[in-house]
């Protein structure tokens, strides 16, 4: 590893450059497109020289799209709002349900504990449509079709296993001795959980929450099947927007940029925990 020949150094440099170009180019290119008018986008050959415009973003934010056929209403901001609401509430619910469960699994070996934990894990790997398609009919009977409540419930399938297994790992890392000492001093189970275990696992819980948020935000198929236009998050909304607006490429690019910015920003913020989160707690970063 220490002795690298000049040739090897150059080859490594070239390889890494290619890697960076391949993985970064689409993001950069779409970002550039979002600041262009359709005219500059449609130029052949394509060029990176253009006068940037904020018109695409303005059209999305005001919800008024000027087309040759007249003004078109677009509900993209509504999709963005739905994404925020669905993801935030889903993660909050998942934390409320998942953290106590994770604590129970980490601290107590009780009858059936591993079975329950693995059942929850297996949800992560079952084909989502297997459950979603019959669920459309149940939701109709229960009056849950196209409701935030129904969607948030189903989103637990993404958020709960993730939170349960990551947070469980963090609780297992904390020595139980501290908690015993606190209990022996006469404090209740709940006080121990709240004053000792929760603060110690705090950073891990926060990271798991952020990751669950990213996965909830990025989900596509749940809302595609269960939600109509007014409840759809950006992932589904952007696809409908492409079909509806047809050739407004600048606005499509701007919509994509607005849709991916939150998760990319959160990912950069939480990157230290991503390895652990992505492997559901099996690999430490």
């Amino acid at each position, binding site marked *: *590893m220490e002795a690298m020949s000049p040739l090897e150094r150059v080859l490594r440099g070239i*390889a890494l450059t290619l*890697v960076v170009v*391949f*993985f970064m180019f*689409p993001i950069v*290119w*779409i970002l550039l497109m979002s600041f262009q008018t359709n005219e500059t986008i*449609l130029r052949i050959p*394509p060029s990176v020289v253009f006068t940037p415009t904020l018109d695409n973003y303005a059209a999305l934010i005001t919800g008024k799209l000027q087309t040759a056929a007249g003004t078109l209403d677009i509900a993209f901001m509504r999709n963005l709002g739905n994404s925020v609401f669905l993801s935030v509430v889903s993660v909050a619910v998942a934390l409320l*349900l*998942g953290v*106590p*469960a994770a604590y*129970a699994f980490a*601290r*107590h070996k*009780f009858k059936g504990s591993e079975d329950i934990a*693995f059942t929850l894990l297996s*949800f992560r*790997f*079952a*084909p989502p*449509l*297997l459950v979603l*398609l*019959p669920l459309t*009919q149940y939701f109709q009977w229960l009056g849950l079709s196209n409701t935030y409540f129904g969607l948030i*419930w189903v989103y*637990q*399938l993404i958020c*709960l296993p993730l939170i349960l297994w990551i947070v469980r790992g963090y609780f297992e*890392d904390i020595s139980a001795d501290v908690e015993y000492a606190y209990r022996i001093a*006469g*404090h*209740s189970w709940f006080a121990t959980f709240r004053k000792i275990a929760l603060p110690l696992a705090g950073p891990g819980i926060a990271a798991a929450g952020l990751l669950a948020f*990213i996965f909830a*935000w*990025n989900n*596509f*198929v749940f809302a595609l099947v269960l939600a109509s236009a007014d409840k759809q998050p*950006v*992932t589904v909304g*952007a*696809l409908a927007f492409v079909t509806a607006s047809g050739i407004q*490429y600048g606005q499509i690019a701007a919509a*994509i940029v607005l*849709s*991916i910015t939150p998760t990319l920003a*959160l*990912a*950069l913020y939480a*990157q230290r925990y*991503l*390895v652990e989160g*992505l*492997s559901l707690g*099996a*690999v*430490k970063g």
Partner: protein
Amino acid sequence: MASVTQPGTGTRGFRISKRVLPYVLSLPALLVCIGILIPFFSAVIYSFQRYRLSQPWARQFNWGENYLNFFTDPGFWNTLRVSLLYAGTTVILELLLGLGIALLLQRRSTVNNFISIMLLLPLMTAPALAALMWKLMTNPGFGILSYFASLIGLENFRWASSPDTALLTVVLVDIWVYTPFIMILLLAGLRSLPTQPFEAAALDGVPRTFVFFRITLPMLTPYILTATLFRLLDSIQQFDIIYAMTQGGPGDTLTVFQVEAYLNFFQSTNVGRSAALLIILWAITYTLSNVFIKNWLRLRERARGEA
């Protein structure tokens, strides 16, 4: 719950609560998910029924007919073939690329750490949105990739709109999104390997290919297995990228399991066939996930042990 766990309750109350407590804590999470298990059993029942949303009156049990029909159904064999081809191609290419990139970034340095963080961005992009990004880039009219293709002599390269290159295009998007997944797992694995065997090999002047194949790879195997199985489980069920890019088309070029099941349910309203397809997919993923969980647990115990 509060009455059981109040401070100052005697030892007897403490003991009872200790037995019940774990169940109380984990039950809500389980209950929320149990509701989701009911549709699973419905899907099993549907798969044994002749059930079309367009002819609800004709709904009746036909037992294994949906499954038996698959044997003589070219559409099913196409689904199976495309799904396996998609999963196989993406996972193999992503594994090779991911391992290569992880090896390039193995040494901790500012540049390497910065690159490995940058590579997380595609992975954190919603796959459906990533497909739209690539759709814009492969647009025949103005797409930058179509332009690049024309520069190297491929005039009218139609990417996802041609049956010949549709699979290639969605595989490319999948590689763009998911290679970083394998990369960061293997990078974490590489960086956690003990250094002594490598130092000893360097001292003895062992050739580097030997070090790689006899030391690095075997020690990395648990990580490679877990990452590969993880990806395989997701890839065989891929829906977002393919649906957002081509909705399974052109024709039936990309009708992988979940896309075909979705189209069967909503377009041809053939619920029975759709459910039978998903049950077969479930059987595949269930088998894979059992193998996966075994490996995953081993890795998890190791990570916890080192902590």
